[in-house]
């Protein structure tokens, strides 16, 4: 009965927190923490480890932004979101940035009023089946039971794919990746479908990853990227250019190992100098410190390092760079110039 006091105490805390300012950047600085929306758990992209610390590729983006804005890669509050809650969480301001392998689509950008700041992973929807089924193409899946995560574009792609190929299937909708795993492993569905990267990550968590194959068909384009709310262009710029900085750093050969040395004094390459703040005032233009990009790169390394550390070929997830290689190496990663 007397616990009404807790509400009261929270009101007090709210009153003392002071007024809320209009700009996300100022909010984040005042709070001293970045609220970053991630998945509820997808190994390699965002998942808490045994100590409860979040790790992964998407987590790396959050940390880089936090490092650029606040100078501290650990100043992030990770907010786990499901397919259902992610957009409301962002729209309502509960999170400042959503880095949850979210596909950039027209309606999300235009109708739901979000701003995708770039693409950090070029993906496509694939299928995973147990090897023993002997299936080699998605077109052989007539009558199969398919586990899908609800609230994602995969659900719509799946319907389109089966409809276009005039074959039938049984959808089994699942809320989170975690719930899908046991259903698939116990055989309650024949096929598990999600983004190819997600399939690789899920398969890596299995006891015997070798018993399962990812089918060759990729049935959709899934450009995954971090996104922010419409309307705060300054904040969108910061996020866009942090992501670009990570990509450009790889292209320019700036890594977490040599960034400290390179940013100590201006070097020969003017673009690196501008990027790292030893020349020009890019940081100031963004409303950040001059060493914003250095901090972002220090947080977890450049794009390539993040990739290799979390989802690359030497990790259990074992994704090849593929489309996600630098443009100089035949991929699609192409950061606009820092100028």
């Amino acid at each position: 009965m007397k616990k009404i006091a807790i509400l009261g105490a929270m009101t007090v805390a709210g009153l003392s927190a002071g007024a809320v300012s209009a700009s996300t950047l100022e909010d984040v600085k005042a709070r001293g923490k970045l609220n970053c929306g991630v998945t509820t758990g997808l190994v390699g992209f965002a998942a808490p480890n045994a100590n409860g610390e979040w790790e992964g590729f998407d987590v790396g983006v959050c940390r880089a932004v936090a490092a650029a804005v606040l100078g501290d890669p650990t100043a992030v509050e990770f907010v786990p979101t499901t397919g259902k809650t992610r957009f409301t969480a962002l729209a309502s301001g509960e999170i400042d940035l959503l880095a949850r392998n979210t596909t950039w689509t027209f309606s999300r950008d235009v109708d739901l009023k979000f701003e995708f700041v770039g693409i950090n992973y070029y993906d496509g929807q694939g299928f995973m089946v147990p090897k023993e089924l002997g299936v080699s193409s998605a077109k052989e899946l007539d009558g199969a039971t398919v586990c899908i995560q609800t609230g994602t574009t995969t659900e719509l792609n799946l319907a389109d794919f089966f409809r276009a190929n005039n074959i039938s299937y049984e959808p089994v909708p699942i809320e989170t990746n975690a719930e899908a795993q046991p259903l698939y492993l116990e055989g309650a569905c024949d096929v598990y479908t999600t983004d190819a990267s997600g399939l690789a990550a899920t398969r890596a968590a299995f006891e015997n990853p070798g018993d399962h194959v990812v089918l060759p068909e990729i049935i959709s384009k899934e450009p995954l990227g971090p996104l922010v709310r419409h309307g705060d262009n300054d904040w969108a710029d910061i996020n866009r250019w942090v992501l670009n900085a990570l990509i450009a750093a790889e292209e320019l050969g700036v890594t977490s190992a040599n960034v400290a040395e390179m940013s100590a004094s201006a070097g020969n390459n003017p673009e690196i100098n501008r990027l790292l703040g030893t020349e020009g005032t890019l940081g100031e233009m963004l409303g950040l410190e001059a060493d914003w990009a250095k901090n972002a790169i220090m947080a977890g390394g450049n794009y390539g390092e993040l990739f290799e550390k979390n989802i690359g070929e030497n990790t259990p997830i074992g994704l090849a760079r593929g489309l996600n290689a630098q443009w100089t190496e035949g991929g699609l990663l192409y950061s606009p110039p820092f100028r």
Partner: protein
Amino acid sequence: MSTLSDPPSGSFQLSMLINDTRYRSYTFQFVALVLLVAAMAYLGWNLVQNLTAAGLNISYQFLGEPAGYDINQTLISYTSQSTHWRASLVGVLNTLLVAFLGCIMATIIGVVVGVLRLSNNWIVRKLTSFYVEIFRNVPVLIWILIIMAVFVAVLPQPRDFRGDNPEASMVLDAFAFTGRGFYSPAPIFGPGSGVVIAVFLASIVGIFAFRKHARKALFERGQLIPTFWPSVALFFIPAILAFFIMGRPIGLDYPELKGFNFQGGIFMRNSLIALWFALSIYTAAFIAENVRAGILAVSKGQTEAAASLGLRPNRIMNLVVLPQALRVIIPPLISHYLNLTKNSSLAIAVGYMDLTGTLGGITLNQTGRAIECVVLLMLFYLTISLSISALMNVYNNSVKLQER
């Protein structure tokens, strides 16, 4: 709050608004109304502000657009090109289906357990009270998840039926119990099956008419006509005769293992069964307690009085105890049905596509129309609850009239 003394004379003063009981209630109501309107206006204003800031609007147009997703259990025709409205309708029917099945099974289990709890067999008493306590005291969500997990993990999957030496086999070559659900033969209605069904329905009507006649004969002339065996005969014989006379028009479609799944027959999905079972056994634990309380509420004197009139035990139960017990049992029973229906919204935990799964799940996710979807969702449940409450009030009033 009665005013006993004469109302104080004199002109109206402002302080009377608070201190005079005649005016104070108006003051309070006025304040409450103002606060309510202010709160509503505040929330509405915030909503408008937030929506304009986000550039969104409230619109139900999305209901007319193609849904784009597939639903695995549809009682009405539905494809991924149907509208969101149609998808919601599919969800409504699925909700009603699981609620209906759940209510029936919960009642059966609940009545049996409730009666057994009054048994004079010690072990049965203990077992049933163990059942009631364990199911009442653990959240239904946990039961749903347990049954689903056990279902998926313990039962064989279709792949186990495959091969020359399969790990699992079909029961009687007609029923398959798999982790994905139960497959059973489905009737195929050929030409002339309408006659068989009509005969069957007619014989059911006949059973009721016969029982009514027997009752009338008993009450008016004291003539005892046996009803049980004639009823059974009436139930089976005409329909079977019609079946053979029409040349066996109704056949069975057996499920068969084809490709990835069993094909044909009737398929009850694991999510439906898990939800149905869990809701039934959970609610049955509550119903059992009601039934027990209802029977105990009929005083022993009633039973003894009936016995002293020379009634046999089953007639005592039918004519004296049950009618009185039902008056105690039915109101809470209906509210348990209502709870079961509301709890069926937990379907979302096992991926059963009820209204919460379609309208409140996929449609909400795909369109991002959170406010509209949640409002519609609440309206649906509210309509169901209020109509059942209204029915219950009618019933309560009808039994009240018989009371003296």
